[in-house]
């Protein structure tokens, strides 16, 4: 099923609020079966871009194609049918606080799948397994969960209908480095096993370096897209500052088998 045509193609997208322009004729292609990281400074319009694709916000002008269909021109019913194949993980989880974890995950299945209640329940437990949660969590309510667990449950809900396209809004923010690394592994494993296309907005350098196939940087109201080495070659000052920062350097240095880097050792030395 893999074709060369992009899964999502954004053409000449313009978003503006009043006189403030957020996206100025932005182009972006999202290919099948890739993990695309979207990076940008605060206020650069990452969330607005995501909201535009998801249909939560109508862009000022431009076109967004999914499998060749213009999402801005199709009917609402057709768009919601398309969205059954999409999973979205919101930044703060956006779990329904009045529903238990089990009901949160089963809600999309109850509404849109032809599965029997027993099968829904079994699959709910499978999704919990997939995101690395114990089955006892199923009976709890979102207010009883930790931040990391909320993200995992939200991911399980995003996976409920076995989507082909997964949007993640800062999936690892607010997680400790170990959980974040686990979450990255989880996404890679889902990506390979389920043939998922993943679009993630992230600030996590680890995620960018370890799991993203391509990186799209939002600068000057437009996109710079490429593989990570290509992006790091780009002379744009913001990109240079972002990826040239000490924290990024520390990660691009390969681990020395002989001498593990001591925490207070200046990064410049390790690099040279």
């Amino acid at each position, binding site marked *: *099923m893999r074709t060369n045509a992009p899964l999502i193609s954004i053409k000449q997208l313009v978003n503006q609020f009043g006189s403030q322009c957020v996206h100025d004729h932005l182009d972006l292609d999202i290919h099948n079966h890739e993990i695309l990281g979207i990076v940008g400074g605060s206020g650069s319009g990452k969330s607005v871009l995501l909201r535009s694709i998801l249909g939560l916000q109508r862009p000022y002008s431009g076109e967004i194609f999914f499998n060749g269909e213009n999402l801005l021109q199709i009917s609402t019913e057709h768009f919601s049918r398309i969205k*059954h194949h999409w999973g979205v993980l919101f930044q703060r989880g956006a779990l*329904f*606080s*009045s529903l238990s974890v089990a009901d949160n995950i089963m809600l999309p*299945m109850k509404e849109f*799948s*032809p*599965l029997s209640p*027993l*099968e829904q*329940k*079994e*699959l709910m*437990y*499978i999704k919990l*397994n*997939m995101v690395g949660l114990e*089955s006892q969590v199923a009976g709890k*309510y*979102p*207010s009883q969960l930790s931040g990391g667990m909320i993200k995992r449950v939200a991911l399980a809900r995003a996976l409920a*209908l*076995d989507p*082909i396209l997964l949007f993640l809004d800062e999936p690892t923010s607010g997680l400790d480095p170990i959980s974040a690394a686990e979450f990255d592994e989880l996404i890679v*494993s889902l990506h390979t*096993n*389920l*043939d998922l296309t993943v679009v993630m907005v992230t600030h996590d350098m680890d995620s960018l370096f370890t799991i993203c196939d391509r990186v799209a940087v939002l600068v000057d109201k437009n996109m710079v897209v490429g593989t990570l080495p290509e992006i790091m070659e780009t002379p744009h000052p913001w990109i240079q500052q972002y990826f040239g920062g000490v924290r990024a350097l520390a990660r691009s240095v390969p681990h020395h088998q002989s001498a593990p880097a001591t925490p207070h050792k200046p990064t410049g030395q390790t690099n040279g």
Partner: protein
Amino acid sequence: MMDLQTQYHEASRSLTLTLTGDWQQSGAPRIHALLSQVPTQNISAITCDATQASRLDISAAWLIFKHMQQWEQAGIAIQFSHFPKEYFAYFRQLPPDDTATQPLQPSAIWQPLQEKVSWLGYLLTDSLTQLRSAISFFGYTLSVTGRGLLQPRRLRIPSIFYHVFTTGLQAIPIIVLLACLISIVITYQGGSELKNLGASIYTVDLVAVSILRELGVLLTAIMVAGRSSSAFAAEIGIMKTNQEIDALKVAGLNPYEILVVPRILALLIALPLLTLLADILALAMAALISTWSLDISTDQFVTRLQQNIEVRTFLAGIIKAPFFATVIAITGTWNGMQVDGSAESLGKHTTAAVVQAIFIVLFLDAVFSIFYYSIGF
């Protein structure tokens, strides 16, 4: 389109099921249909091959897995070929289906009865805990308010005036409307009866006493309870959900001093003023109606009012306003503090704030009536 190709191997009496096309969750009925058609008589082994499937999502794989397990239980050797290995890891360790394994209770009568009794007990202890929490909240708030009044530096003056604005000034239009309407009701209803008796001048006494002593303050309080008690509960409830209360505590600030006390003081200022406004407008409206419809001139109305109505009639009403204000503010803020993070609990406590505020206002009003009667006020 998903399909299934069945291949029979004579020598080993085995079947190979080859999956083709897209096997996905939305095709669940077709998956069941295809797999239940597989002939399993005299078969010793089944291999399911996913090599040619263009897509096999985990739900479809699970449905296939369950069918294969059924065949395995029937004594057929099963094998999966080219299924993603990780899927099987997710399939293990499913908790047993609790609905099916629950044993039937022999005590079909005692069990529900026991449950009801324990539920009753739970309800009682729960409401007692609630009551205790409300009383301690009330006491603590009073002590914080008292401390604030002794040390005015601790009072948040801008905050108080902001809440006077939202609960008082912004309520003026609706209170004006309410006062005029209730005055119209009483004056016409009472006036027509008294006119029949030839005593239409007594309408002045009727309107003045009922508005000043009772209806002016009571209806204003009920309106303010509906407007502000719910607003207080929702504001504080959302702040609690957003951990803003925790943030205040951590910053060394007392959330009661910042959030609760200004609201109480604001209502203590706003409600008596609103009551005064309601009283004045209701009487003015009554004077107007009397001139139009009951042949009582404005002069007559005012003179009658001055002769027959004492200041204490007005006082009997307005004295209640601060008590009602405290009740409304406390129920609103207390319910806000009870919110535990879910949207449902926010709704529940916002509703409870209004219901409790109105109930306690009416209850207090009844207590006042008995009290006034017994002291002859």
